[in-house]
């Protein structure tokens, strides 16, 4: 039967190309969506766990928005007074409390995120360096601005300061690669924050007792204590609802694809009436004809699925990689997505061919011969 399908496909190249393209677009969209979603979820997980904190202390306001601002290195409107830091450090089970002040400033004339903090940051980040002096520059920033250790940075917003680079970090493949880490007071001065902090990252001594510590810290006025895992779960929930909407839109496109393919196949049945009639006259059973049309559609769908997978993969290479929460997300490909997409293509192929295949199988050879 395969050679019959191929012979027919060769004869109707334009129709094959259009049908395959229609299915391929749907499959490519789905594949890219799944791969990008997985990439964004992974990036979110990496960023939040990469903070190294067991508890995030944030100013009042939406904790998820504030966390995203912190991850993206943007200043939020709300802040924590720096005077609270000693009180925070005295709470039981707090091993270390790292103050953070973030915002955008001009670094050597180019806008970049500034991350003000203290040497305690080395206790919670896995950078593999021993001292925090001068400016510690993320690998992407260093590459973008052509910086080397010993260069003097000019950082400018509310004031202008000069600072030598002590370290260029190894790539972390997270947002740290895009930050310029500077001493806290200097960041506060440049960013015009005064004695205010964007957040405090807390690491606890006994992790299993973090909930109690979080509760104690959360009772302090003007701040809220949030476990990063909760922020992650909430953001993932938010993201999943967006993803579901996108999948729904893709599903509608796929249903439209099914109807289009069904229409194409039905038209093909009418166009090939003579061929079907002769086939039946030569002894083809109704089931043979039915099988032939379903197999043809399946062939086109699998071809469309394969083209769509390649197209989806290529598309992800050209899509902006910071599309999810402003995080740098690398699309994640898995065998499961490949199976899902091909399964969708098969469903499209089979479901769109059932009606036309039944119509073809119903063809009466005598009726066709009398019309010829």
């Amino acid at each position: 039967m395969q050679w019959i399908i191929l012979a027919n496909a060769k004869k109707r190249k334009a129709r094959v190309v259009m049908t395959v393209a229609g299915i391929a677009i749907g499959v490519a969209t789905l594949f890219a969506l799944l791969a990008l979603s997985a990439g964004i979820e992974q990036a979110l997980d990496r960023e939040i766990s990469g903070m190294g904190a067991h508890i995030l202390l944030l100013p009042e306001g939406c904790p998820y928005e504030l966390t995203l601002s912190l991850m993206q290195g943007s200043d939020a409107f709300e802040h924590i007074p720096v005077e609270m830091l000693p009180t925070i450090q005295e709470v039981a089970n707090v091993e270390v409390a790292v103050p953070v002040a973030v915002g955008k400033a001009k670094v050597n004339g180019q806008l970049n995120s500034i991350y003000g903090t203290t040497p305690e940051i080395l206790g919670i980040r896995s950078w593999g360096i021993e001292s925090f002096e001068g400016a510690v520059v993320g690998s992407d920033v260093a590459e973008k601005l052509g910086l080397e250790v010993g260069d003097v940075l000019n950082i400018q917003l509310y004031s202008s300061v000069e600072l030598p680079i002590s370290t260029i970090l190894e790539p972390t493949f997270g947002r740290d690669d895009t930050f310029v880490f500077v001493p806290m007071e200097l960041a506060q001065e440049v960013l015009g924050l005064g004695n205010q902090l964007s957040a405090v990252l807390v690491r606890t001594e006994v992790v299993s007792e973090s909930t109690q510590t979080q509760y104690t810290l959360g009772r302090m006025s003007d701040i809220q204590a949030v476990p990063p895992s909760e922020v992650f779960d909430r953001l993932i929930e938010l993201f999943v609802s967006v993803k579901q909407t996108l999948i729904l839109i893709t599903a509608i496109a796929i249903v439209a694809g099914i109807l289009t393919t069904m229409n194409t196949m039905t038209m093909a049945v009418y166009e090939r009436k003579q061929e079907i009639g002769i086939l039946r006259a030569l002894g083809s059973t109704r089931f043979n004809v039915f099988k032939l049309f379903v197999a043809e559609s399946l062939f086109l769908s699998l071809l469309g699925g394969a083209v769509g997978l390649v197209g989806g993969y290529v598309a992800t290479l050209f899509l902006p990689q910071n599309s999810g929460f402003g995080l740098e997300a690398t699309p994640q490909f898995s065998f499961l997505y490949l199976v899902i997409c091909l399964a969708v293509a098969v469903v499209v192929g089979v479901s769109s061919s059932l009606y036309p295949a039944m119509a073809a199988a119903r063809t009466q050879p005598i009726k066709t011969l009398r019309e010829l």
Partner: protein
Amino acid sequence: MRIELDNVWKSYGTGDAQFWALQEVSFTASDGDFVSIVGPSGSGKSTMLHLLGCLDLPTKGAVRVDDASIEDLSDHQMSRIRRDKIGFVFQQYFLNASMTALQNVLLPMDLAGVDGGRKKAAAALEVVGLGHRLGSFSSELSGGEQQRVAIARALANHPSIVLADEPTGSLDSKTGKAVLDMLISLNEEKDLGIVMVTHDETVASTANESIHVLDGRISR
């Protein structure tokens, strides 16, 4: 194999528009016969051929294949009879334009699940003198060549009877004669039953027996 039309009537349309294409027709075709059905256009000769080929059912009377009434057979069983026991040759050849000569002959073999179909299809084309045109599409073949491919296709599953509807109708006299010679030799050498519909008395005379049809009735 024996196909019998027993007092067959066939009508098309209903009510006032009912038209009797065949009336009181009785006829038998068996292996080794070479019969021509002669008559003018609209006389009912093609309708007879369709009934003999299990493509249609009679309105009245019975069509029997080896004593089994086709009205008692399922669509599937009738398809099997067409596939395994009957070969068709049409005036317009009706080759599949997207297939090569070889593939057109291979098609009925493929339907029957014949092993080594390609070799056998090539051999069938060799028999009709087209061993050198296996890869040609119908658009690349002359009318005579196309009809020879159609004959090879009809012979693909070694049928007992070939039903030919105006097999020379679209061919010039020389090519038509060559096709008729081929049918004669198949009948004589392979004991193949042939029922040929034609409106041409000269063509009809090549058969061993001729029956004449006029206004849906066998006239002589």
